[in-house]
């Protein structure tokens, strides 16, 4: 009986803590720094050849937050920059990085075979996975994600075998349940990437 009068205040404190925790979680979820889709849609699944030699199915990564990007290994600027930021973000995530997967799909199947992709991606982070396939397979994946791609761009002063491609340079963020949640425009810092991945991992 002596403690009865303090029980209501403890219960009230517990409720207050619960409300504060829920409120904090809701606020952080709403504050992704990336561009956000509302409502989110299911990320279109695809089946390509993985840079590891196996089949690359996006749905295989359910339970992880996926950063999905499109590019090519001969890219002079955009792709190396983006991948370097993603590698830095994964490093900063530390242990939580185990639940973060980078998937990079080539837009240049002519030059990006499995080995080429594997070597290129490993130079940023060995956990990064690449995807390649036939031009038709890759075109279907790009269409599903609204990725634009130019024709080959040749430079007069360079050999005929050298060409560049202009392609969508953003990164999609897919949550643990396979929902396409957000888009990170090119140039977003590793700090912002880490922030948004943590927000999605917390869900």
């Amino acid at each position, binding site marked *: 009986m002596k403690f009865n009068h303090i029980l209501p205040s403890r219960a009230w404190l517990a409720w207050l803590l619960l409300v504060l925790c829920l409120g904090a979680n809701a606020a952080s979820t709403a504050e992704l720094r990336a561009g956000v*889709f509302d409502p989110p849609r299911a990320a279109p699944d695809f089946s390509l050849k993985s840079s590891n030699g196996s089949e690359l199915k996006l749905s295989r990564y359910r339970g992880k937050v996926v950063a999905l990007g499109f590019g090519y290994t001969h890219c002079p600027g955009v792709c190396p920059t983006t991948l370097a930021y993603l590698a830095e973000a994964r490093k900063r995530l530390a242990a939580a990085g185990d639940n973060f997967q980078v998937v990079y799909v080539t837009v240049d199947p002519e030059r990006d075979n499995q080995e080429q992709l594997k070597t290129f991606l490993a130079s940023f982070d060995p956990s990064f996975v690449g995807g390649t396939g036939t031009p038709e397979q890759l075109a279907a994946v790009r269409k599903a994600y609204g990725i634009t791609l130019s024709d080959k761009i040749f430079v007069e002063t360079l050999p005929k075998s050298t060409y560049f491609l202009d392609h969508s340079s953003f990164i999609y963020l897919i949550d643990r349940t396979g929902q396409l949640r957000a888009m990170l425009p090119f*140039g977003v810092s590793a700090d912002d990437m880490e922030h948004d991945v943590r927000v999605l991992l917390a869900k």
Partner: protein
Amino acid sequence: MSKTVLILLSIAVLAVPAWAAFAPIRSETRELVYEIPKGTFARRQAGEKFDLIPAEIRLTIGVQDVLVMKNHDDVPHLFGPVLIMPDQSFRLPFRKASSYLFTCPLHTSGLLTIVVDPEPELGWMRLRWRTSAAAQFAAAL
């Protein structure tokens, strides 16, 4: 004119620019919203050529720095950099002043430039920004 009126007028003349230069900028919303109306795809299929959005969009950090794109059409649309499904919206906040260039099939030029200006700093920059905003408002009347 009495001395008091002169003093009051002088204060007012000084107070207005001072307010414009130092008062915080408040806006009802920081979002700039563009919408794809229903029937857009059908109109384009019929051969109609039109721009839904200007070739250049200007935003200002801290004032209007969130671009919102809504698709009310029956088919998915590439709006700026992203594919937006029917009845889906995409909200893109900007945190860094810069110039962003995106491909945009909705635009006849195929390109969309988003210029994000820095937040007007206290003092002269803010006064200039407010003067410019007031001029634009007056021109629109």
